[in-house]
């Protein structure tokens, strides 16, 4: 009974490491899309009974996180013609090891958090590790698009944490989360294209140099 959501959460962590370890942006986005699909399945598996609220949450997540956002990102890399992250601030092996560290930390923190007893004990550590790895990607990669991916992973982590309260949190709040991301990505998309047009590359380090 409990093994299926556990395996899904496991795959969420694996997609995190997938994003952390690949140079190709399209692979990153595919991993993110997979994560979106997994997150869409989770509310259905964790709910004690299938209410309209849960169904809406699941379909909303699937459409936004699993289809719309990856499609938007794919469109962005096609338009901006970026294929891969050239040189991250921290190398891939080092960031994988950092990810492993984050994993250990997340599990250590999760056991010490004063939370009410949960049906699915893996949910909290996995949400924490997703937030941390999202943060790693967000801070150590140079391409604006990879940073968007990192931001979305961070957001996915928060969504996972929200799932622990899925029964009691009002429907509006969840929709607010999804809307938040959507708006965020659109703003980032605009920023990304401005960086691209201005500097002919998506390297956000260019923004640090002051020019007339």
């Amino acid at each position, binding site marked *: 009974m409990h093994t299926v959501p*556990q*395996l899904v959460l*496991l795959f969420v962590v694996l997609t995190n490491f997938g994003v952390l*370890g690949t140079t190709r942006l399209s692979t990153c986005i595919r991993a993110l899309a997979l994560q979106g699909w997994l997150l869409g399945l989770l509310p259905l598996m964790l709910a004690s009974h299938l209410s309209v609220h849960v169904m809406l949450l699941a379909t909303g997540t699937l459409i936004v996180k699993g289809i719309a956002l990856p499609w938007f990102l794919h469109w962005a890399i096609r338009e901006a013609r970026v294929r891969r992250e050239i040189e991250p601030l921290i190398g891939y*092996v080092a960031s*994988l090891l950092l990810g492993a560290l984050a*994993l250990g930390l997340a*599990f250590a923190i999760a056991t010490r958090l004063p939370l009410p007893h949960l049906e699915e004990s893996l949910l909290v550590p996995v949400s924490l590790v997703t937030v941390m790895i999202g943060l790693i990607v967000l801070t150590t990669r140079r391409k604006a698009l990879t940073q968007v991916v990192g931001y979305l992973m961070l957001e996915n982590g928060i969504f996972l944490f929200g799932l622990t309260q899925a029964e009691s949190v009002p429907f509006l709040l969840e929709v607010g989360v999804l809307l938040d991301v959507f708006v965020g990505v659109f703003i980032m998309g605009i920023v990304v294209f401005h960086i691209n047009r201005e500097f002919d590359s998506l390297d956000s380090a260019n923004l640090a140099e002051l020019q007339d």
Partner: protein
Amino acid sequence: MNVNALLTLAVLLLAAPAVPGIAVRTKSMLSGRRGAPVLQLYYDIAKLLRKGSVYSTTSTWVFRIGPWVVLAALLAATLLLPLDGTRAVLRFEGDLVAFAGLLALGRFALVLCGLDTGSSFEGMGASREVTIAVFAEPALFLCFITLVLATGDVSMSGMLGAPLVEAWPRAAASLTLVGISLFVLLLAENSRVPVDDPATHLELTMIHEVIVLDHSGPDLAAILYASALKLSVFGALVVSVFAPRTGLGPVASIAILLAGIGLVAVAVGIVESLTARLRLNRVPQLLVGAAVLAAFGIILLLG
């Protein structure tokens, strides 16, 4: 020592040369070719055994005994595996360290052979082989630690035998991760595609093939058989993790083991058809990834 274990061992030793054949056959079929017969390696070994060996004047006794040390180390490592699903021919507390040590000894002997020829190509291959081992071995140990934590038994026979069956419902997630990690290690340790290409023709890009370039006759036969056996041993490891076979009859147990190793070989062939070889400086990344998976398995068990 029980008869079943010996019998399974004999069957595995007989079947080992067919395993790389299955991988090659899968690869050729997927790319629309007919490919070499599955039993090709048996013919090759039989041919090589009938021939004499040629030794270069720069090589010493190290080069001559090397292949046989490799073969002996692999055979000894096979003795420690619980092939029939319950217990190995040889078992003692902590034999997993001996298992890893024997694999390392085989690699050490092979690398020494390569260095002994004095050829710069083989030296390069040797250095690459060792570089990969540096990343592969910690991953192997992390896998073993996960298995030990899951089963509470510190011998190969225990952690891959009966206690593993009981551990599966408790630790399905960790054990799945270990299985995947072991499969990646199988690809790396046996010089298969994302790490090394067994079919490459350019010495500059070879890893395993270039080390054995100077061997001939029975020596080469020993190396070929040892590498086929290594592939089967790792295949048996993966199969033992995913399909523990306790409480089955000896025949069913052997059949499941052989079918499982066959499936693993097919999977290797599929991976070889689907992926290109990784750039050499990206190989550590793959292996660190495998190690992280195994470490995740440990964290899941502790958490």
